[in-house]
């Protein structure tokens, strides 16, 4: 690990200024991903700006919105009464992620901003457009059973990136129409959570739409009528402490036997949490049935591609969508 300077500012603006003014500076919160990346030589910051002491840990519910500070710990959020009552889907997703020890360290902002676990991103002996722009993508012809099926053009894949975003929490936040509150040097802005992460395109080195001098300060989730009709299904190699092969966040609002609102997002399938907007629209106004769920899942798969070892995801993904919807609808 390269020697680095360590700062611990007490004000949000001081932290933002410290990172904004130095291209070699990085924020550090729980450090559960950044420290690994530093040890492996993937990133080598000159300066770490520790934000753990900033007052951004609060979890509250006010006027129809659940507000969660960016530094609230994953474990605190997953166990918080307001989260369990208002947005149980988020609690489920958080619980399925990482391990108890990691959830006690990892923050909400850090979870959203964690990097992909693609083995070629981590192994500096291989080309990787995300780590070293323009070097190529070893995963396209390599070990890619964990990789993307959405959001990447097959013909352009070696110039782009087929890695997936590893966060479970982010899949739930994408499904729940969460907003991200971002503080910059000029002030605050808000974006939809679905606009936080990018598709790889020709700049796979950029995971998000954040600017260098911006800091996520919190997330807000508006009320919904999904109640307990929400389910996070995670398919993985081990029952615990494993990243999703495919995951689905499903939420349904059923009134008088018909679907009034639906949300579907997937993890482990794209460079960002993947919302299935077309599948959601297909469900609207129709009575709940497994056949309907199968139609919606098939619609959601229309643009899917695969790269050999992850061909199985083309079947697993729609099956997982159906399974998650059945759970959400309490049919199964």
């Amino acid at each position, binding site marked *: 690990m390269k020697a680095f300077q360590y700062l611990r500012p007490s004000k949000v603006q001081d932290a933002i200024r410290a990172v904004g003014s130095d291209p070699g500076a990085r924020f550090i919160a729980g450090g559960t991903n950044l420290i690994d990346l530093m*040890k492996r030589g993937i990133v080598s910051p000159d300066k770490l700006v520790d934000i753990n002491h900033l007052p951004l840990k609060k979890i509250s519910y006010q006027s129809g919105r659940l507000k969660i500070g960016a530094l609230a710990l994953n474990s605190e959020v997953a166990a918080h009464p307001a989260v369990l009552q208002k947005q149980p889907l988020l609690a489920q997703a958080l619980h399925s992620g990482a391990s108890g020890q990691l959830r006690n360290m990892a923050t909400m902002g850090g979870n959203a901003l964690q990097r992909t676990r693609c083995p070629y991103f981590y192994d500096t*002996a291989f080309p990787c457009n995300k780590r070293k722009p323009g070097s190529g993508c070893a995963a396209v012809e390599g070990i890619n059973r964990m990789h993307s099926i959405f959001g990447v053009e097959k013909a352009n894949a070696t110039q782009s990136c087929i890695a997936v975003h590893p966060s479970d929490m982010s899949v739930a936040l994408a499904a729940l129409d969460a907003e991200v509150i971002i503080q910059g040097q000029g002030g605050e802005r808000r974006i939809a959570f679905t606009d936080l992460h990018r598709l790889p395109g020709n700049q796979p080195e950029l995971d998000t739409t954040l600017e260098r001098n911006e800091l996520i300060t919190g997330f807000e989730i508006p009320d919904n009528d999904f109640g307990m009709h929400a389910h996070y299904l995670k398919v993985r190699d081990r029952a615990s402490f494993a990243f999703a092969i495919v995951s689905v966040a499903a939420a349904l609002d059923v009134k008088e036997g018909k679907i009034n609102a639906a949300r579907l997002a997937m993890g482990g399938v794209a460079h960002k949490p993947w919302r299935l907007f077309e599948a959601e629209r297909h469900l609207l106004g129709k009575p709940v049935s497994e056949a309907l769920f199968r139609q919606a899942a098939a619609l959601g798969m229309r643009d899917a591609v695969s790269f050999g070892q992850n061909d199985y995801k083309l079947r697993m993904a729609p099956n997982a969508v159906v399974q998650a919807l059945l759970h959400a609808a309490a049919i199964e």
Partner: protein
Amino acid sequence: MTDKESLDRVDGPEKVAGTATYSAEYRFKNLAHAVLVTSTIAKGEITSMETRKAERAPGVLTVLTHLNAPEIPGNPKAVQPAGRAAVGTAFRLFHDRYIYFDGQPVALVVAETAEKAKYAASLIQVTYQTEKHATDFEANSRHAALPVNIQRSQNSPFKDYERGNPGAVVQAEVKIEATYTIPTQHHQPLEPHATIAVWEGDDKLTVYDKNQVSNLHRETSRRHLN
């Protein structure tokens, strides 16, 4: 396993409680730290090694490679044949330019702290002439052969096992044919691979090591160091 067969491990409670002292956790004054640089190819030859930056990095005491490694008394270079070692030959560390496996140690950086050694190790640049490796068991199964030493041995556990009437399957009325594969198994020790060696006099070396057979390890070390 019955109660009768069950034995308590002497180190069980300490390991479970996290209080066991791992090899790397013993503390000594003036302890130097070493970090390995490992090959990024599976087969080929080292064509060049750039170690100057690492040698000049803060806190670095030495950088060892096959180009400057001192002779191992019990394993002198002079008696070893030149060229790529034959299949079945014991692996010799920092011996020559040949790469036999992915992750093969190619350099060792010794520094005042582990962090300084690790940083210096990241500055070493190795270039290789890559040869085609064959590591896919399935694709290479038709080349499979029983090694000569197993064929020679009367009691090798790796020999084909036969009893009863092995030809019976040919006449059998009902046959079930299937391919059985074994998933990847990872050997995962509780503690990281780390060794501390302390000279306690000209003829006494104490080694704190993570291993499974300590007396065998002691004999190997003694033989290498004469």
